[in-house]
């Protein structure tokens, strides 16, 4: 397009942010129209790393397609796998053993913390502070080590399988998780000292990227993005899956709807996840880690939809089955895609520097958006 190169007729500059740009956390391409430093319009151009996972899954069996979903939202790969496993189990009506359920929830929450840790560091780095990124990785590495020990990989684990989990937890798992909780609790006050309380940081975040509750719902925003606007949308509370209805935890809500509210939601969510882990880590019931399933899974004819809460929001798996061994059609409803659509609405009229803060608090993971 010619328009993308130069400037518009009324003298505004058109600036291509991305696909290779330090602030886009990957390969997001935004075409923004700016007047001086003020943003007039933000237009995402997606597809730079679109792999058509939905089409790919149509030729994979119900056991195979789960690993692909780790490559979507790679920061909450466990939770993506979990959603797919749940959806297949819903179709096959498999009763998952309690031990497997608890392990799954533990892994989900660890993943959520790891994802928020990375987000926290990257958020501060977007705003120009490099140090928090490395401090966040200290805690994130501890989680990755736990994952490596039990699941055998650090990022794309493929640990959830239909019927339970692939392997039982490692004998060291409980000890290591308790060590991590102690580490996290001793370091969490530093987050406040380094970033949250910092006057420069607060001024960069407060009143930036306002999103009202009505707009958040209309744009389909979910997860911390919507909860920062006071919209209650935690799937773990509203449509509980696994054992979330028996766990005592709080849905974090902030009402301001600005970047700082979204920031605070995520920071407080980390502590909530820690409390969930603390409730479960000593109470992993004995039993099987996997239900007995057939070697070849065949979903009955029909449609199955499963919603879970990833670190970024409402992740949905929609399987249409024709009764074969592979899905007829799969749709992944990714939270980042809807959250991104609100960016234009939020960014209009604010400064170029604010765009970075907004994108940071939306916590975009581009493979999740592009799928």
């Amino acid at each position, binding site marked *: 397009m010619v328009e993308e190169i130069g400037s518009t007729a009324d003298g505004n500059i058109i600036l291509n942010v991305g696909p290779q740009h330090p602030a886009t956390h990957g390969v997001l391409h935004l075409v923004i129209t700016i007047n001086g*430093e003020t943003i007039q319009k933000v237009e995402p151009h997606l597809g730079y790393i679109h792999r058509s996972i939905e089409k790919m899954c149509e030729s994979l069996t119900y056991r195979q397609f789960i690993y692909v979903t780790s490559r979507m939202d790679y920061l909450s790969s466990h939770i993506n796998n979990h959603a797919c496993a749940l959806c297949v189990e819903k179709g096959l009506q498999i009763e998952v053993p309690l031990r497997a359920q608890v392990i799954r929830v533990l892994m989900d929450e660890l993943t959520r913390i790891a994802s928020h840790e990375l987000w926290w560091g990257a958020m501060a780095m977007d705003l120009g502070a490099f140090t928090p990124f490395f401090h966040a990785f200290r805690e994130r590495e501890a989680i990755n080590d736990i994952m490596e020990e039990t699941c055998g990989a650090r990022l794309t684990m493929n640990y959830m399988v239909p019927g339970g989990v692939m392997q039982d937890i490692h004998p060291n798992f409980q000890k290591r998780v308790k060590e991590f909780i102690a580490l996290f609790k001793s370091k969490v006050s530093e987050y406040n000292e380094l970033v949250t309380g910092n006057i420069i940081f607060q001024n960069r975040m407060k009143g930036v990227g306002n999103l009202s509750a009505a707009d958040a719902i209309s744009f389909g925003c979910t997860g911390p993005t919507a909860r920062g606007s006071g919209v209650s949308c935690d799937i773990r509370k509203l449509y509980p899956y696994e054992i979330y209805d028996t766990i005592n935890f709080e849905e974090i809500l902030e009402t301001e709807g600005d970047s700082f509210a979204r920031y605070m939601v995520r920071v407080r969510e980390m502590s909530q996840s820690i409390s969930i882990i603390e409730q479960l880590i000593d109470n992993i019931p004995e039993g099987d880690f996997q239900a007995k399933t057939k070697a070849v899974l065949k979903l009955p004819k029909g449609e199955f939809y499963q919603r879970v809460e990833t670190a970024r929001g409402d992740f949905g798996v929609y399987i249409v089955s024709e009764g074969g061994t592979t899905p007829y059609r799969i749709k992944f409803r990714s939270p980042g895609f809807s959250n991104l659509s609100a960016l234009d609405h939020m960014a209009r009229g604010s400064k170029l520097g604010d765009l970075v803060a907004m994108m940071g608090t939306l916590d975009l993971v581009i493979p999740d958006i592009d799928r």
Partner: protein
Amino acid sequence: MWSFSKISKLIDSWLSVNFSSTWTMVIEMVIAGIAVITLFALLGLVLVLMERRVAAWIQIRLGPNRVGPGGMLQSLADTLKLLVKEGMTPDGADKFLFNLAPFIAMIVAMLLMAPIAFASDFQLWDLNIGVLYVTAISSLMVISILMAGWASNNKYSLMGAMRSGAQIVSYELSAGLSIMSIVVLSGSLNLNEIIQSQADGWWLFKGHIPVVIAFIIFIIAVTAETNRAPFDLAEAESELTAGFHTEYSGMKFALFFLAEYINVFIVCAIGATLFLGGWMPFHIGHWQAFNHVMDFIPSSIWFFGKTFFLIFLIMWFRWTFPRLRIDQLLDLEWKYLLPISMFNILLITLMAILGWHF
């Protein structure tokens, strides 16, 4: 005991015995030029390594540790890499200005070296309006940045240059005012005389609260003037990729990079001269024995020690704080620093007129 001043006097006397006065002048200028360039190169190597070490330790990392003992030769390897890289000029760029800009940056940095007293009685140019000279020349820095940003034919570069223009011009004010406060107290524009006025104690430690405020404002303002984080809006990499030097590569980029560090060194040297007594040793009242021990340390070590302490301060800021937004940056200057420093200089002038200082 030898010192820089003795060596320079020896060279001078040897030259004037063997050559006519014109040739002596020329040879001395060449020597000074070579010395300055060598100092630049050394400073570049040392400061880059220091920055990387400070950053690494603050970020609980090890930092460079592969090239040479303990990674000491890392910046040398980086320089070699930059030397052999291709220096590209983008299509549509104003080639002349594009290639000129990095050299302007270096020339400005070199000019600023002239009046700085590196040790007692060791100075390239003992200028009677040294402070004025420094403030005047340092504002030329913005020209090279604007030139680079404009000539690159890149929107990011242009925005970075414009930001930096607005930033440097506004922060000159409070930097100038805080420098003025020392001029008012010492009653001289000559850097040497300012140092001499601190023989019985550095201005910062003489117990004048307005001087402490002026020092804080000075540090903030020069951090902004040298485009260092948290005021690195001209090259804010998460917003503008690399700002005004986005299109530069190879040695031309290295010159900008070097000029940034040299500028940091110079403003810290000025800060050390004005507030921390330059090459003056640290003296405490009537503790004669202690003062004698302090006098024994060479004056050049005192000067570099103080300067590097201030450089560390500026690096420490960089690796701790997030970046400001452009409007907040100007807010900080016009709503906070400028009113405070104006009020401050009023207080200092009153002090000077009424003779309350010592």
